[in-house]
């Protein structure tokens, strides 16, 4: 059974029947009403707004961390001794060697 000729005939019929391009009256007005005063979404502006919103919490965190480290840190003299010990540890080891 060869169905191909009928298939081709029906497709030719579909080509012969181009759909109408008529438009309902003032259809563009309807779409514009749906759009209203909607702005085109600006991705960079949204990102910028998020960053600005994050400024205050980040600044507060930075302040808290700074205060915390200042209060809990050892005295500057201890810090200097510790730094010396670390830097000179290698030399001490070399000096002890026979």
């Amino acid at each position, binding site marked *: 059974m060869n169905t191909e000729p009928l*298939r081709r005939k*029906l497709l*030719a019929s579909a080509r012969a029947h181009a759909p109408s391009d008529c438009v309902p009256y003032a259809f563009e007005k309807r779409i514009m009403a749906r759009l209203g005063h909607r702005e085109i979404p600006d991705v960079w502006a949204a990102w910028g707004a998020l960053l600005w919103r994050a400024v205050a919490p980040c600044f507060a965190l930075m302040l808290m961390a700074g205060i915390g480290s200042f209060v809990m840190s050892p005295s500057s003299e201890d810090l200097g001794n510790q730094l010396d010990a670390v830097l000179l540890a290698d030399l001490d080891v070399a000096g002890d060697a026979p």
Partner: protein
Amino acid sequence: MPPVPPTPDPAPSGIPVPYEGLADDALVRRVITGENDCFEELIRRHQPRVFATARRYARREDEVQDIVQEVFLKAFERLPGFRFEAPFEHWLMRITIRTCYDFLRAHQRTRESSFTDLSREEEDWLERYKAEPDSADERAEAARSLVQRLMDTLSPEFRLVIQLLEIEERSVKEIHQVTGWSIPLIKVRAFRARAAMRRAIARMKPEKYL
């Protein structure tokens, strides 16, 4: 006396159309910078083609209008992504065809159609075709409704590929650009879609008409 520049044709409301002389790209740029009124002119220019395309996929007029509305709302939201490399119309038609494809997929289950309940006119057309294939008029309404029934039996992918490749006679490359499908995938789908159409025709009382 200097020549008087032509005045723009008035809109249906009687107000002159201010953006009529502007090219599509210029209108798009204005919409992106916030002049939303320019989008109305873009809709006015391109809606006939969008309507004609939507009518190829949806039968009911309210469905067609929903598709067209969705196309223009999507286009408005995606305008910042328009790169001015291809004409605006091509970009818009890509959105249109993808929206129509989404529509077909969403309405897939409600589109079960039977090829056994043919109308009197459709049966007459098929009988004429059987008696003398050349005498069956391709432009007859019965032929158009038979095609519609046949297309309704296909899956959205098959229907889209047959519509674009065989009815609108677009090239495989064009279909690739419009749908985003790879070229081998389009060829495979076209092959399977043709086979599915032949199977659907074979279910249509073949002993009577073929």
